[in-house]
């Protein structure tokens, strides 16, 4: 589903952050990308989702055999790529429900499905809200406006459940969550695992992986994947830290 080959990317000030990332993710798999601060985790998420501010200087990314990097961000999303933000953006004045329905209908249109009317949409929303224990009142507010940190992260997974992507990239979805919220978010992610979907979890810590057990774990260090293994690698990192991978901290 996703094939990243020798990916090099730099940020606006010219610094090269990704220095030859290779990664292949098949449908049905859950991968975790771990690494110390500054290793390029968020840059990788940004490049894959089409966030402005990055320049790819070398390499390629294929998504279902298509050149992902040639697609604008909105097109990637409609093709089934989803990014759960590390810092979900507050958008005052844009109602959550209105936003979500616009997004869902854009995605459905791409898939050749009919647009949902207000009744069908509300029904779909209610089913998914339960999964993440989000109050319906939150959806009457502006997008992410007045949400707690945990509510914002749950809202990301809720959006993922609504949009039903093929490839989900979760950028530090566990950061800033207390244990209850972490479990809730994990339940949501696990419910979305399936043979047709690939999930890439980017995280600094191992604790999310106690709840969402990955098929593969990769260590990103200084812009490269330096080690790959199964779930045991994550536990090993928890004990030894990133010291061996260039994190002085």
């Amino acid at each position, binding site marked *: 589903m996703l094939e990243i080959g020798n990916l090099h990317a730099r940020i606006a000030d010219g610094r090269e952050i990704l220095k030859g990332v290779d990664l292949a993710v098949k449908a049905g798999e859950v991968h975790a990308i771990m690494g110390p601060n500054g290793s390029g985790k968020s840059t990788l998420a940004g490049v894959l989702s089409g966030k402005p501010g990055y320049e790819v200087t070398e390499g390629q990314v294929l998504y279902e055999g298509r050149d992902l990097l040639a697609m604008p961000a*909105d097109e990637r999303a409609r093709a089934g790529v989803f990014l759960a933000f590390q810092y979900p*953006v507050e*958008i005052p*004045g*844009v109602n959550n429900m209105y936003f979500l329905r616009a997004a869902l209908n854009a*995605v459905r249109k*791409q898939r050749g499905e009919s647009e949902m009317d207000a009744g069908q949409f509300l029904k779909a929303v209610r089913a998914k809200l339960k999964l993440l224990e989000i109050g319906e009142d939150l959806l009457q507010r*502006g997008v992410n406006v007045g949400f707690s940190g945990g509510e914002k992260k749950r809202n990301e997974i809720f959006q993922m459940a609504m949009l039903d992507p093929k490839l989900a990239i979760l950028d530090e979805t566990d950061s800033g969550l207390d244990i209850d919220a972490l479990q809730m978010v994990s339940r949501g992610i696990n419910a979305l695992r399936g043979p047709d979907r690939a999930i890439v979890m980017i995280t600094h810590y191992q604790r999310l992986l106690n709840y969402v057990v990955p098929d593969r774990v990769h260590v990103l260090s200084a812009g490269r994947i330096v080690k790959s293994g199964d779930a045991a690698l994550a536990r090993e990192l928890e004990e030894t830290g990133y010291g061996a991978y260039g994190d002085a901290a």
Partner: protein
Amino acid sequence: MSALAEIQPYVEAFKARPPVPEPSWLVQRRDGAIRRFSELGWPTRKQEAWRFTDLRPLQKSSFPPAAAAGDATEADVAPWRYPNAAHRIVLVDGAFVPALSAIGTLPKGAWLASTSQTLHERPELLEPALRETDVLGGQAFVSLNAALFADGFVLALEPGIALDGAIEIVHLGRAANRSAQLRNLILLGPNSRATLIETYAGAGAYWTNAVGVVGIGIGAVLRHVKLQDEDEAAIHFGHNRIELGRDARYENFTLSLGGRLARTDIHLKLDGEGAACGLYGATLLRDEQEGTIATVVDHAAPHGTTREYFKSVAADRAHGVFLGTIGVRPQAQKTDANQLSKNLLLSRRAAIDTKPELEILADDVKCSHGATVGDLDEAALFYLESRGIPVAEARRMLIEAFATEVIERIEDDAVLRAHLSRHVARWLAAGIAR
């Protein structure tokens, strides 16, 4: 064209007016007003209040007053119809059209009619209000209006009269290269109350020049909404002078969407202790539209309150201007005034000039002002795009959010908020280039 040649067609039009029997005081005032207009000529950019406004669309043609109301049907009015109106007055090309108007039952002590009818039946209502208005703000447009006006609307409420249903006034422009010189009057007696929705719209390259005089008596309340949705080839000038008595309240909302060149002037004086005004508005500009909002608030009595918040959006090659002055006279202690101008620039070729100003001569006051000019929030835009929303729709959603935020400030009137939001959405649906 020389400055004199530019104004000559209007002086000629004044001389060529068909004879209409009018009270002698009005004949004299019209003569005085046309003289003053001839002396003033159009304002120039050397005048501070007109520094940013490009008058060329007005100056390169002439717009003598339309002779009579052009053809218009219900269908022409329908897009602007206010859903909750209890009374409606429709004027076409500056003239009252009874067939399109519907004035409901009014309580005793309430007067709502066209200006021409009022001149015939209640001249005493108009006489004091027309006394000095030709020098309002020293502007040529007001003098020209005083000389040439034929019609408009008059609302007068005696003390204690509260009108529950909204009054809707629709001004339609239909005659190309003609002007509608409208003179409107609102007189609210002590403790009376009304809601007025004024809409300016039309089709073609006409010029609307409207002047309104508003007096709000002790403890009276007026909610006054202006939807300026003129044809994008048309020119619009609307000047309102408002005076507030003790504990009177004036709530204004101005939504400006149309016009090749449009300007709204609000001159407001808080003349009685404890008077309060709320001036709110949003201006959306695209293509080569020129739009100015100019407000002058004069705190002349203690304990006055001003809340002023205007937003503007400029796309393509449009140019927006906000000029806001709040003055506090020495006797106006305990004034509480704030003013905010927030602006959104959507294109490199668009421009916005904003000039908030405070002139405070009293020492015990609370006054603040601020202005911002920015572009769309990149992070918000990416967030919407990352969910599959096409970039044009994402931009539209953010612009709509920016504009409707100020509409949401309107209190206690969901119908009005929905009405204005619908017109913002309609404007946005027509699209902008970049």
